[in-house]
């Protein structure tokens, strides 16, 4: 069971309050049941800031972030990853000069135990580890439909494939919680559907997923519950359908509706 608790999280940047007392929970059920929690909101609502706080890229001004009871808010990114949180980025951060396989090999960095000396002299543990990393890496690429381009440079891939590779690389670190920051941005409908399948697959494997997403159809398909952020505050929380029907959410996206005049306009 994995439990991420965000408690009263506040993030201020020189006079701008990006997050204000945000409370959020991502919790998987018992018996290996995964969970997908959506995080939506208009541009500038603070979604990426929240992901950055959880993954250690920015240090919150106040509040707590707990993973299974352990506070995360003062740990550097690599320690947070070691505790089982992996993420992708809105603007893709692949290792461009490396091969596709190289990227998922780096993802398994932390699983390695062989020292530099063992690698220098090609000792058995290094060989075993390398073999296992390659096997895992190729299996992961297979799952994401990237095995055919394992030897290609990462930056030679089309955009959608780069996004998929970034998700594969995040999974290669063996996380319990996956933070996905707009994984379908710039994707066409077919690519979006396949990204949705991968998210459900991660859920089926028992992972907790926090998904920042603009595509409401996808959110409706994959999310068990949704948080809505606006101007750094949680304005709604519930099932995708509940949230979509919430007048505060509609207002946040479309502006305050002048119901009387709309009704009149509709009537004439």
């Amino acid at each position: 069971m994995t439990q991420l608790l965000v408690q009263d999280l506040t993030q201020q940047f020189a006079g701008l309050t990006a997050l204000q007392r945000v409370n959020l929970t991502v919790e998987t059920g018992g018996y290996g049941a995964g969970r997908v929690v959506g995080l939506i909101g208009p541009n500038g609502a603070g979604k990426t800031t929240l992901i950055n706080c959880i993954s250690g890229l920015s240090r919150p001004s106040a509040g707590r972030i707990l993973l299974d009871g352990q506070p995360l808010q003062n740990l550097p990114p690599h320690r947070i990853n070691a505790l089982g949180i992996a993420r992708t980025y809105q603007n893709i951060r692949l290792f461009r000069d490396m091969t596709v396989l190289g990227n998922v090999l780096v993802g398994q960095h932390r699983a390695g135990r062989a020292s530099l000396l063992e690698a220098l002299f090609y000792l058995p543990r290094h060989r075993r580890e390398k073999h296992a990393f390659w096997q895992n890496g190729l299996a992961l690429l297979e799952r994401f439909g990237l095995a055919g381009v394992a030897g290609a440079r990462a930056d030679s891939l089309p955009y959608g494939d780069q996004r998929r590779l970034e998700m594969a690389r995040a999974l290669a670190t063996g996380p319990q919680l996956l933070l996905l920051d707009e994984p379908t941005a710039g994707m066409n409908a077919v690519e979006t559907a396949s990204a949705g399948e991968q998210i459900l697959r991660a859920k089926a494997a028992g992972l907790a997923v926090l998904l920042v997403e603009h595509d409401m159809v996808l959110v409706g398909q994959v999310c068990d519950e949704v948080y809505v952020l606006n101007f750094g505050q949680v304005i709604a929380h519930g099932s995708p359908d509940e949230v979509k029907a919430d007048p505060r959410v509609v207002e946040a996206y479309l502006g305050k509706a002048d119901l009387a005049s709309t009704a009149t306009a509709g009537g004439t």
Partner: protein
Amino acid sequence: MVAVTLVAGLRGDRRVFWSVLNAIGLRESVVQFMLVNALLALSIYLTLHSGMFSLANAGFMSIGAYVGVIATQHFGLPLGSALALGMLVAAAISLPLGAPVLRLSDIYLAIATIGFGEIVRIFWLNFDGLATSLVGHSVTLTGGALGIKGIPTSTKTWHLLLALAVAGYFMARLNDSRLGRAMSAIRQDEIGAASVGINPVYVKLVVFVLSAMLAAAGGVFSSHLTRIISPGDFSFSRVVNILSYAVLGGTATWVGPIVGGLLLTALPEVARPLQQYNQIFTGSVLLLVIVYLPGGIVDPRLWARLRDRLAGKQSNDDEAAAARQEVRGR
């Protein structure tokens, strides 16, 4: 000619080997400096390959040189022990230096490490005076601005070949190790590397120490070739030279810096017949390489393009160029 030299070298025919090299101006002493500079180029390659623009190499080279010479001349140690000692001292200094300085990046790291080089240079310059006032009687160890004279030339060519072979093997295996992959990852995207569990601070520090040890090894060897060392030998221009070997050769692979170090050291000697135009020639070569081969001479992408062209294939770059041409034509 290159073939004759290689064949002679492989057959162990040393007379033919050296006579060919001598004919183009490469006496054994020049070859020795070529090998030393290849080692120094590898030391800066390590940091560049990990995305660190560190220019501390001349400083660590001078630490190797002074520690090595003091070890052999004042304490009568053999060259091998002096080498180990020089590398150890450099490692011991690079560790506390790297911990704060490697928080900087890009040009700020360059400036801080240039500062370190100057501090070390001035330290050797004033060492005797400082030691005298501390100990209470006259100390003459580094000889101030005049330096240390009369150092025996105990570095042999085979020492250097062995050292370069060991360093080359190390670099080749590094690419296959977790550390090597983490280095590349940090160079390409430090934040991305941190979020897959790599500790960038730790990896950079390890690489900085390794680079310092390699530079110190170069310093120990070179100080036992030059007969004389003085603080002025390790000024800013030294690290610029080391950097230019890596840039000329290319930093995409570890072969590049070796080639760059060998070539750029040999060039002024080969071009000696040009007399006063010698420096202009060397400078022009460097300039042309930077302008036309920005990835250096040993650039895998360049070679791949050449291979494709020879095989009659059009690479992506060519297609892109053709497309641009077409757009321009319209």
